[in-house]
């Protein structure tokens, strides 16, 4: 798998230069990559039970993270859809974006996304899964915001990456918790270990948040319809078969260990049901072709989530069938929408009419896909729905609510299908505005929809042949059993069929009566459509307000207040443990060993300090500072450091001279702070002084490591031929340090010179 992902990424890299070189036909070569992958996957499916293949390469061996890939039934289903539809979309882009200078870039994003998506569904390492998951978010951001010159596209792209990014963060948290809890990050090991206690509620919540944001489940459904700002091929690809299905993949993958918790069932059932109903109802309010499809996609995702709430072979089979059916009909419809837009330059369903003139193939594809959407017998979606009815029919008390949801959603889908089909066959538009102009339709624009529509038909007629292997593969992966599942194209006259047909009939009636006033009023009364969007805006505004507020409080710009915080933190965090440590020390408090000259030097320093702090005049303060320096220099001399002492004397003298020279230009010394403020500072600084004193005492009381200085003592004369060890250390053993020091000195000198000598030009100075 790694090789295929690498090939897809390489394809993404070469697509820009290739499309510049072959602006018309470059897409043919680029489409080879997904085609090859699709063929490889079909081959893997044919040999399936043996087809579970894995591949592991070390990545960060020290952290036990590896590039582990595994292709089991579930991965296979998703990867087939990703590569197959990806191939068709790649052909479609060629015609859709022809003449666009940024075609190559679009291809690059497309393949980048495809590679990431394949990575998500085949990764066998939790962290690898997370990495690819984030890559899909990033690449979909690029695809949705492709027309970045439009503000709406930028907003939609940002919204999608913020919402899915939130889920990504949750996924990271969940993945880390799960991996640490199970002791391994290998997904297959976690699943086979089947540790049913592995999914604690926090882990479950993190995974659900990730899946729900990615798959646009209520209440995160709002980003998907907005993402219709993307160019149509991207919408078709992202929202029919790939990006939004990643969340479903995650749920399906971890169902074996997650579904034991009642939280799993209730959250999936409720979120799925809400999303399915909400999406289906809101879809009917839409007039723009793509937005209608987007809301019906939200609804279908809800149904699929609902299907994952219970681990059962029939539920898994229904999930797989519905997933494939949805990918086929929704992919076809999105591509049809793009083709219509490309040929007529009109996206409002109410203004479209007479589309049968475009191309018989396009009309046929649209009809097949819409029939599948409506659930007409003979098409794949019908077969999938039979499964759903069949499964929920055995679910006991859940039968009534689940069946009701299914019927309502199916009826609304029928209305949606008729709304979509009407412009193809009606001669006159509902809302005739500007007369439509028909442009010729490139064959590559209808090939994709025709293939997908026909696939829906073939799979629906021959489910045993075509769908059976896929469904069994998925069941074996999701339930870890090999229980065979039987599929029938025509189930015979039974309750499920009656329910299906009743739903279709209700849908047709609703469509016919759609102009009926109470129905229209009810449709218009639903203001929930923008609810999610408004909540998102509010949350974003709130976030900015919090950021502004906290920045204003934390970054106030007063140096001394920053210092105060640091001081306080040091006193508390260092001082408290230090006090505890020092109180255990046996301190020798005798002053007998103190010599008179030492005591005098220390006193000199203390007096200097007091003078510096207290002095009312700046000259006295500077001289006091000099006294401090001379006192310290004397101390150095007394304790065996003549080099230090000499340097200190020189530097101190220089400092005093410089300060006195410079202070001629500085103002008088005065007290600026109030007494209370000064008292507060005195208290805090005294506390810190005590902490530092304690630190020195503690440092003297024990030794952690043997001193390395003996090395310098022994080798100074031997290796460096110098007898002043301090000097040898500076110019030889630690010469690089000294070089740094010299550089600092030179830089500071240059800086000071520049500050004092360089004047702004006259013009700027007078400004």
């Amino acid at each position: 798998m790694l090789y295929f992902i690498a090939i897809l990424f390489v394809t993404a890299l070469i697509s820009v230069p290739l499309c510049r070189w072959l602006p018309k036909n470059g897409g043919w070569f680029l489409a080879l990559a997904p085609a090859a992958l699709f063929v490889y996957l079909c081959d893997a499916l044919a040999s399936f039970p043996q087809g579970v293949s894995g591949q592991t390469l070390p990545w960060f061996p020290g952290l036990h993270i590896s590039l582990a890939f595994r292709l089991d039934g579930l991965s296979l289903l998703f990867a087939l859809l990703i590569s197959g539809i990806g191939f068709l979309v790649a052909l479609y882009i060629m015609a859709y974006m022809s003449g666009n200078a940024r075609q190559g870039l679009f291809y690059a994003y497309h393949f980048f996304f495809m590679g990431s998506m394949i990575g998500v569904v085949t990764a066998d390492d939790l962290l690898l899964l997370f990495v690819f998951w984030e890559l899909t978010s990033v690449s979909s951001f690029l695809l949705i915001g492709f027309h970045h010159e439009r503000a709406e596209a930028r907003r939609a792209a940002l919204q999608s990456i913020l919402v899915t990014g939130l889920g990504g963060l949750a996924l990271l948290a969940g993945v880390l918790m799960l991996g640490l809890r199970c002791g391994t990050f290998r997904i297959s090991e976690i699943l086979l270990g089947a540790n049913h206690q592995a999914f604690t509620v926090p882990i479950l919540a993190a995974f659900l948040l990730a899946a729900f944001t990615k798959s646009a489940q209520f209440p995160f459904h709002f980003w998907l319809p907005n993402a219709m700002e993307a160019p149509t091929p991207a919408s078709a690809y992202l929202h029919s078969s790939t990006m939004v299905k990643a969340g479903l993949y995650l749920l399906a993958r971890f169902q074996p260990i997650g579904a034991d918790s009642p939280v799993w069932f209730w959250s999936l059932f409720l979120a799925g049901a809400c999303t399915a109903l909400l999406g289906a109802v809101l879809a009917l309010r839409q007039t723009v072709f793509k937005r209608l499809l987007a809301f019906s996609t939200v609804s279908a995702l809800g149904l699929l989530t609902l299907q994952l709430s219970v681990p059962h072979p029939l539920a898994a089979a229904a999930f797989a069938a519905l997933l494939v059916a949805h990918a086929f009909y929704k992919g076809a419809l999105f591509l049809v929408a793009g083709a219509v837009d490309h040929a007529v330059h009109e996206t409002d369903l109410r203004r479209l009419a007479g589309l049968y003139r475009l191309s018989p193939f396009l009309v046929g594809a649209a009809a097949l896909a819409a029939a599948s959407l409506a659930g007409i017998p003979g098409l794949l979606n019908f077969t999938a729905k039979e499964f759903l009815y069949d499964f929920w029919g055995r679910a006991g008390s859940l039968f009534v609510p689940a069946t009701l949801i299914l019927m309502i959603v199916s009826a609304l889908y029928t209305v949606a299908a008729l709304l979509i089909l009407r412009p193809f066959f009606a001669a006159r538009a509902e809302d005739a505005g500007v007369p439509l102009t028909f442009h010729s339709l490139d064959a590559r624009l209808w090939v994709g929809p025709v293939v997908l529509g026909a696939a829906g038909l073939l799979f629906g007629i021959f489910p045993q042949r075509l769908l059976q292997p896929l469904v069994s593969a998925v069941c074996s992966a999701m339930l870890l059993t090999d229980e065979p599942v039987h599929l029938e194209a025509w189930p015979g006259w039974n309750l499920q069929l009656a329910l299906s047909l009743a739903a279709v009939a209700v849908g047709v009636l609703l469509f016919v009566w759609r102009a009926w006033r109470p129905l229209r009023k009810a449709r218009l009364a639903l203001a929930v459509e923008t609810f999610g969007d408004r909540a998102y805006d509010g949350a974003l505004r709130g976030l900015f307000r919090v950021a502004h507020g906290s920045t204003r409080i934390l970054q106030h710009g007063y140096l001394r207040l920053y210092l105060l915080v640091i001081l306080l933190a040091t006193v508390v965090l260092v001082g408290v443990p230090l006090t505890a440590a020092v109180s255990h020390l046996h301190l020798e408090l005798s002053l007998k060993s103190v010599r008179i000259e030492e005591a005098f030097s220390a006193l000199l320093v203390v007096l200097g300090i007091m003078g510096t702090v207290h002095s009312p005049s700046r000259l006295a303060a500077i001289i006091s500072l000099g006294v401090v320096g001379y006192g310290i220099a004397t101390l150095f001399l007394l304790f065996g450091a003549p080099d230090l002492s000499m340097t200190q004397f020189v530097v101190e003298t220089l400092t005093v001279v410089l300060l006195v020279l410079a202070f001629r230009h500085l103002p008088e010394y005065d007290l600026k702070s109030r007494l209370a403020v000064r008292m507060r500072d005195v208290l805090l600084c005294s506390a810190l002084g005590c902490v530092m004193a304690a630190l020195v005492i503690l440092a003297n009381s024990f030794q952690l490591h043997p001193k390395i200085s003996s090395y310098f003592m022994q080798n100074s004369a031997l290796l460096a031929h110098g007898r002043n060890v301090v000097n040898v250390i500076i110019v030889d053993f630690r010469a690089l340090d000294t070089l740094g020091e010299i550089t600092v000195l030179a830089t500071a000198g240059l800086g000071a010179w520049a500050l004092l000598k360089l004047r702004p030009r006259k013009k700027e100075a007078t400004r």
Partner: protein
Amino acid sequence: MTLILALVVGGLYAAGLYMMLRRSLIKILLGLALLSHGANLLIFTAGGLTRTHAPLLPSEGALTLAQSADPLPQALILTAIVISFAVLVFALALFRKTYETAQSDDVDLVKTEDEES
């Protein structure tokens, strides 16, 4: 003696920080100087005080660590003295320029906000 020097270090830190908390530019500068003295003396004292020889090897024979002061802290402090001098000089130039430009040595009056809200 260690105890006395420890207290001196504490005093240097306290005084240096107190001065750095003032609003006057000059006092901040003097505080900076006191603080670097404190840091130097901290390293010196923490490295162990000894009244024996300086780490100067005799022209013949060797000198062990037990017989002399520790050379390593001294080398570090030597570097630190020079660097703090450089910092002081630069700060002095900077503060003088600030005073010239802002006509005030009160940091609260000099303060500007990057972002005008």
